[in-house]
C-alpha cells in the first residue's frame, strides 16, 4: 500500500464517521419533529441515501478520466468536505426554524408531521455533498488495473468501519454525554480539520494554501460563535411548531441515547416530541387520572403488579399507594426517566425509595420473555399513542398473549389503547372479557366484576405523605369521592362522553369501529405505517 492509498483509507474512514454521525443526529431530528412516527426513519434514511447517490453522480464532473492521481481532485475534495460539513451543521437549526411555520401537530391528524417532511430536501443536499467524497477519494487513490475491485473493497471497508464507529460512538456515547448542539459543533470541527488536512496534502502551497486555511479557520470560528443562538430553543420550536412562543422554554429537556424527553412548565411530559403523561396524582370526577385508581374497582386484592412503561412515574406512584398492592415491578426502557425526571418532582420521587417498587431498565417484551414464571394480579401499560414507532409491539396479539400468560387467575390487564379500534379488537380476540374505560382497555382471563363499594373504600384509604386523597370527614371530599366512583354507574351506557365511558364487552364488540377493525399483529405493525 502506498502513502496515497493509506491517506485515502484514512479519509474514507473519517468521512464515513462524519456522515453516519450526521445521519444519527438527523434521525433524532426527524423522529422528534414527527413525534416519533415510524415512517420518519425510513423517510429520512431514504432521502439521505438518495442525496448520497446524487452526490456520487455529481462527483463525476470533478473526475479526470486520464489522471486519477492529479492533486486537483484532492483540492476539489477539500472544498466538498468543507461545504458538506458546514451544510450538515446548519441542517438542525434551519429545520427547527422552519418548523415554526408548520401548523401545530394535532395528534389526531398528524398533518404537521407530514409537512415536516417538506424540509427533507435539506438533508438530500447535505448528503449529496457528503456522498460526493467517496468516489472522489476512490478516483484519486485506486489505479485502474485488475486490483481495482480489491482496493475498492479496502476503501469501502474503511468507510464502513468509520460509519459503524460513527453510528455506535455518536448514537450510544456522544448522544448520552453531549447535547445535539455540542455534537453538531464537534462534527463540524472534525470536518473542517479534515478539509484543512486534505488541502495541505493536495500540495497546495504558499498564498493559496494560506488562503484556504484562513477560510477554513473563519468557518470554524463562525460555527463556534453562531452555535449557541442557532441551537437555543430548538426542541421548543420542533415540538410546538406554529404555537412556539419566542420566550417560552421547557422546564426540563433531557437528551440521552434513549431519545429526548421534555417537560413543560405545567409538568406535562413529552417523550420524543409528543405528550407522554403528566406528573401528579390528583383525582377528581371527569379526570383521566381515574384509570390507574380504577384497578380496585375490578380486582379485590391486586397484591403484585407489573407496570410496563414507568415514564414520569405517576401511575406507578398511584399504584404503590393502593393499600392492597404489596409489590410493583416497573419496567422502563428509557433510564432517563428514573435517573433524571422522577428525582426532580416531589409528587413522584418517593417511588425511587419505596420498598414496594422495583424499577427495571429493560424492554417490556424482553423482560416478559425472560421471566416466564412471574405471575401478576395486574399488568398495567399506560402505553403511548398507537401510531408511534414501536407502539404496535405493545398492542399486538403476540404481546397480549404474552401478558395473558403472566396473569394470575382473575388477573387484570389495563392498557391505554389511545383510541385505537384495532387495539380494542386485538384485546377482544385474546382475552375472554374486556371493557373500555375512557380510552383504556380492561382485559381479564375471567369475567370482569365491578365492585363500587370496595373501590370507594380503597380510594378513601389512599394517602400521600400522610395526607388522604379524600378526607372522608370533609363533606366536599365525600361528594368528590362519590362523583369519582359513580363512573361505575355508567357501565353499559353506549352514548356517553369519553371521560365518563365504561363500555362492556358487548358494546365494544358491536361498536362499528371495532367491528370493521383488523387485529394488530407483530407482522402487520398496526397503525405505525401508512396504508394500515
Amino acid at each position, binding site marked *: 500500500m502506498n502513502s496515497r492509498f493509506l491517506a485515502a483509507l484514512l479519509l474514507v474512514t473519517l468521512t464515513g464517521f462524519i456522515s453516519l454521525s450526521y445521519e444519527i443526529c438527523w434521525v433524532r431530528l426527524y423522529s422528534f419533529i414527527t413525534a416519533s412516527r415510524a415512517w420518519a426513519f425510513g423517510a429520512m434514511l431514504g*432521502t439521505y441515501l438518495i442525496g448520497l447517490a446524487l452526490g456520487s453522480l455529481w462527483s463525476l464532473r470533478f473526475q479526470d478520466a486520464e489522471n486519477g492521481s492529479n492533486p486537483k481532485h484532492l483540492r476539489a475534495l477539500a472544498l466538498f468536505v468543507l461545504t458538506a460539513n458546514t451544510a450538515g451543521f446548519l441542517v438542525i437549526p434551519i429545520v427547527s426554524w422552519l418548523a415554526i411555520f408548520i401548523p401545530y401537530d394535532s395528534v389526531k391528524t398528524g398533518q404537521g408531521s407530514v409537512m415536516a417532511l417538506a424540509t427533507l430536501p435539506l438533508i438530500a443536499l447535505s448528503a449529496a455533498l457528503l456522498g460526493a467524497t467517496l468516489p472522489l477519494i476512490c478516483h484519486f487513490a485506486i489505479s485502474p488495473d485488475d486490483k481495482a475491485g480489491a482496493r475498492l473493497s479496502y476503501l*469501502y471497508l474503511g468507510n464502513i468501519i468509520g460509519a459503524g464507529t460513527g453510528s455506535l460512538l455518536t448514537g*450510544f456515547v456522544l448522544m448520552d454525554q453531549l447535547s445535539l448542539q455540542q455534537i453538531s459543533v464537534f462534527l463540524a470541527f472534525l470536518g473542517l480539520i479534515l478539509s484543512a488536512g486534505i488541502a495541505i496534502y493536495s500540495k497546495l502551497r504558499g498564498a493559496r494554501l494560506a488562503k484556504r486555511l484562513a477560510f477554513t479557520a473563519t468557518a470554524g470560528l463562525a460555527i463556534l460563535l453562531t452555535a449557541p443562538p442557532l441551537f437555543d430553543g430548538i426542541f421548543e420550536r420542533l415540538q410546538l411548531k406554529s404555537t412556539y412562543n419566542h420566550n417560552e422554554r421547557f422546564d426540563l429537556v433531557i437528551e440521552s441515547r434513549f431519545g429526548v424527553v421534555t417537560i413543560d412548565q405545567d409538568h406535562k411530559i413529552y417523550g420524543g416530541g409528543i405528550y407522554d403523561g403528566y406528573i401528579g396524582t390528583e383525582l377528581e370526577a371527569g379526570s383521566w387520572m381515574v384509570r390507574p385508581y380504577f384497578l380496585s374497582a375490578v380486582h379485590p386484592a391486586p397484591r403484585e403488579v407489573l407496570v410496563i412503561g414507568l415514564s414520569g412515574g405517576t401511575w406507578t406512584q398511584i399504584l404503590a399507594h393502593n393499600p392492597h398492592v404489596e409489590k410493583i415491578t416497573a419496567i422502563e426502557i428509557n433510564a432517563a426517566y428514573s435517573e433524571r425526571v422522577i428525582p426532580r418532582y416531589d409528587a413522584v420521587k418517593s417511588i425511587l425509595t419505596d420498598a414496594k417498587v422495583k424499577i427495571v431498565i429493560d424492554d417490556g417484551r424482553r423482560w416478559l420473555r425472560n421471566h416466564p414464571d412471574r405471575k401478576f394480579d395486574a399488568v398495567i401499560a399506560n402505553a403511548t399513542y398507537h401510531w408511534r414507532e414501536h407502539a404496535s409491539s405493545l398492542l399486538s396479539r403476540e404481546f397480549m398473549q404474552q401478558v395473558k400468560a403472566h396473569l394470575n387467575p382473575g388477573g387484570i390487564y389495563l392498557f391505554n389503547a389511545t383510541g385505537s379500534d384495532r387495539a380494542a379488537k386485538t384485546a377482544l380476540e385474546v382475552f375472554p372479557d374486556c371493557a373500555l374505560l375512557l380510552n383504556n382497555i380492561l382485559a381479564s382471563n375471567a369475567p370482569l366484576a365491578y365492585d363500587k363499594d370496595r373501590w370507594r373504600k380503597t380510594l378513601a384509604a389512599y394517602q400521600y405523605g400522610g395526607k388522604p386523597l379524600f378526607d372522608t370527614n370533609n363533606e366536599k371530599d365525600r361528594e368528590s369521592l362519590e362523583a369519582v366512583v359513580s363512573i361505575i354507574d355508567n357501565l353499559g351506557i353506549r352514548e356517553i362522553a369519553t371521560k365518563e365511558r365504561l363500555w362492556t364487552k358487548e358494546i365494544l364488540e358491536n361498536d362499528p369501529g371495532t367491528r370493521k377493525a383488523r387485529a394488530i399483529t407483530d407482522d402487520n405493525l398496526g397503525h405505525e405505517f401508512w396504508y394500515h
Partner: protein
Amino acid sequence: MITPETTITAQNPDPPGLGIPRRALFLIFTLSGISALLYQLIWQRALLTIFGSNIESVTVVVSAFMLGLGIGSITGGAVSKRHGVPLLLIFAIVEISIGIYGAVSLHLFHWAGNFTTDSGTFQTGLLTLMLILIPTLLMGSTLPLLVAHCVNVSRNVGHSVSMLYFVNTLGAGIGALLAAFIFLGMLGLSGSLYLAVSLNLFAGIMILHFRRKGAHDPV
C-alpha cells in the same frame, strides 16, 4: 485482455466485455439496492421486536450490519482479484443466495428468539449477530464484484465506482422510502420481505439470462 479503448462512453455504452447491457446492469444493481434497504428495515424491526428494542439490541443489530457489509466488501474484493473468475456469475449467485436467506429469515429469527429464551445477553447478542452477518456479508460483496467487473472493461475507477455506487445507493434510498410509505403499511413485515426476496431472485436470474444469451465475463 481488455484495453483502454473499451472505455464505456455514450458512443459505446455496451462494450462486449461487459457481458450485459449497461442499462440492464444498472437496473439490476438498483433493484439490489432496493431489496437491501427493505431487508434492513424489516430485519431491524423484527429483531428488535423479538429480542427487545433496548440499547444493547440496537447496538448488536447496527454493528452486525456494519460488520457484515465490511467483511463482505473485503471478501468480494479478494474474489475479484483472482484471474479468470466469472464475476458476473458470482454476483448472480450472491443475489440469489441473499433472496433464499431472505425467504427463510423471519422464520429463522423467530426460531432463534425461542431458542434464546433462557439465554443471557451475550449468547442472544452473538446469535443475533450471526443471523445478520450472513446476508449482510453477501450484500457487502456485491459492489467490489461489480466494480472489478466494470473496471476490467472501462479502466476508469472513478466512473465505475460513481455509477455503481450511484445506482445501488439510489436503489437503497428508493427502497427506504417505499418501505416507509407503502410496503410496510400495506404488506406488513412478511409481505415486504417476500417482495425483497423476489427482487433479489429477479436480479440474479436476469444476470444468468444475459450470460446464457452468449455474453460472458472477461477473463
